[in-house]
């Protein structure tokens, strides 16, 4: 009997206790750094007129449409936001195409960008969607604004002042929860590579940018946003620690990798899952309804801010 208790204590002191202590230390460091990050006072050292690299996380159809609408609500200023990186999830051609169209429009290179509202296809009289006789789907494609013409499937994924990059999905629809942690890690890794300019599909950034690190990251809710914002905070933690270790201390530094999360307009009373996860991470958490204003992850952390309706 005494022998087995000895074995138990042996295992406890040699394995369980150190692992628990390390785990506790890690959690303390994570919570403390999130707390410090949310309460840090940043110095205003960035000069106006310099290059600004913004990373825009796009998601599925709805998220992408809302994001691009928000950015272009008052004409998007390319002389302030001088370089744009768009991140889409793999296989989401719609978002990538939308980003390319957006770039063509804000870059002034649009071929025939008439206001979509004035398009002739949008009156009942001229529409043939009500015709019968053949399969309706086939008829639609001839008049639909986005035709299945292969030539139109091609769009630029990079340009002088933008690039469009894919990341693997964090979790596919109906994917098992057993394998989901691995694909989430895969996504997280891809996000780290993009943020540090090491992604395989990386196009060379313009010389005017001092670093591959984006100045600002904006997102409105797809799963990949969670990976991207946590990856940005993770990088900032390492930059902070390495500055401290190399004795550069806490001298004023240009704010980079700032993260903004915009909760969906559809969320009136309850935050989305992405929102709840990102509450302690995002530097600015914007909500569009009053009942969600002033929420925070825990005591001492930043509160959500209400900025009105951004998508209308």
């Amino acid at each position, binding site marked *: 009997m005494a022998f087995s208790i000895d074995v138990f204590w042996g295992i406890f002191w040699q394995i369980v206790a150190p692992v628990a202590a390390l785990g506790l230390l890690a959690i303390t460091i994570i919570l403390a750094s999130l707390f410090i990050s949310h309460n840090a006072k*940043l*110095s*205003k050292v*960035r*000069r*106006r007129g310099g290059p600004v690299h*913004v990373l825009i996380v796009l998601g599925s*159809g*709805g998220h992408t*449409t*809302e994001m691009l609408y*928000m*950015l272009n*609500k*008052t004409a*998007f*200023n390319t002389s*302030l936001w001088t370089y744009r990186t768009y991140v889409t999830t793999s296989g989401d051609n*719609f978002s990538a195409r939308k980003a390319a169209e957006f770039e063509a429009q804000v870059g002034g290179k649009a071929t025939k960008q008439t206001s979509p*509202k004035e*398009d002739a296809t*949008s*009156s*009942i*009289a001229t*529409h043939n*969607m*009500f*015709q*019968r006789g053949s399969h*309706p*789907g086939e008829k*639609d494609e001839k008049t*639909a*604004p*986005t035709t299945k013409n292969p030539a139109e499937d091609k769009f630029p994924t990079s340009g002088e002042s933008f690039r469009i990059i894919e990341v693997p999905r964090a979790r596919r629809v109906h994917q098992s929860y057993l394998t989901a942690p691995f694909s989430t890690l895969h996504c997280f890794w891809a996000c780290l590579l993009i943020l540090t300019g090491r992604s395989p599909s990386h196009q060379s950034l313009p010389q005017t940018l001092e670093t591959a690190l984006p100045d*600002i990251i*904006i997102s409105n809710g797809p799963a990949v946003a969670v990976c991207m914002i946590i990856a940005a905070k993770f990088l900032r933690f390492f930059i902070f620690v390495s500055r401290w270790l190399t004795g550069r201390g806490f001298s004023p530094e*240009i*704010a980079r990798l*700032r993260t*903004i999360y915009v909760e*969906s*307009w*559809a969320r*009136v*009373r*309850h935050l*989305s899952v992405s929102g709840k996860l990102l509450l302690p991470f995002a*530097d*600015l958490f*914007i909500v569009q309804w*009053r009942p969600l204003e002033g929420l925070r992850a825990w005591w001492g952390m930043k509160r959500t*801010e*209400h*900025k*009105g*309706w*951004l998508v*209308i």
Partner: protein
Amino acid sequence: MILKKLCFVSVGATASFEKLIRQVLNEAFLAKLAQHKFTHLLIQYGKDGEALWNEFVNDFPEEHLHGVRVGGFDFKPELWPCMHMATKTMTQDLGIVISHAGTGTILEALRLALPLIIVPNADLAGNHQVDLAAQMQDMKYAIHADVDNLLEALDKAEAQRSERPSRVSRPYGHEDTVVDPMADQLYFVD
């Protein structure tokens, strides 16, 4: 000349909503539309709605039913041209949009100031859609309906047309953008 008047129904792309399609591809609903002087019904029925649509086309091969012309399609990446067909013009009366509570259709209906009926899909877990539908009803932008009371909802929507805000009023009083708070995060020299 009779003004054309469209009822556009959207069930979205991600989930099937057969109950709603059944409710609108229905003689009683079409008779109700005709009663309110609608001339066209357009249905975005989604992937799983194809069978119901084909069944309807077989049952009623003629183009008009109760004087209402019915069209349908599975999905398009952009639905705004369909929504725009419900706006008021020289030849068209202001129509109506019936939406499955998808954010995209609700926002577009608000932007175009279209009458709107929101029918959240009860089979889906997303109770935030019910929150949004209730909120839209409180603000008089929409009627919050159920698949089973669609006819009453249409009556209500038609009766309340005049009370509806003709454009988006800003509940918080100003023009809001995301780019200003974004610029704040860059910490420029004052």
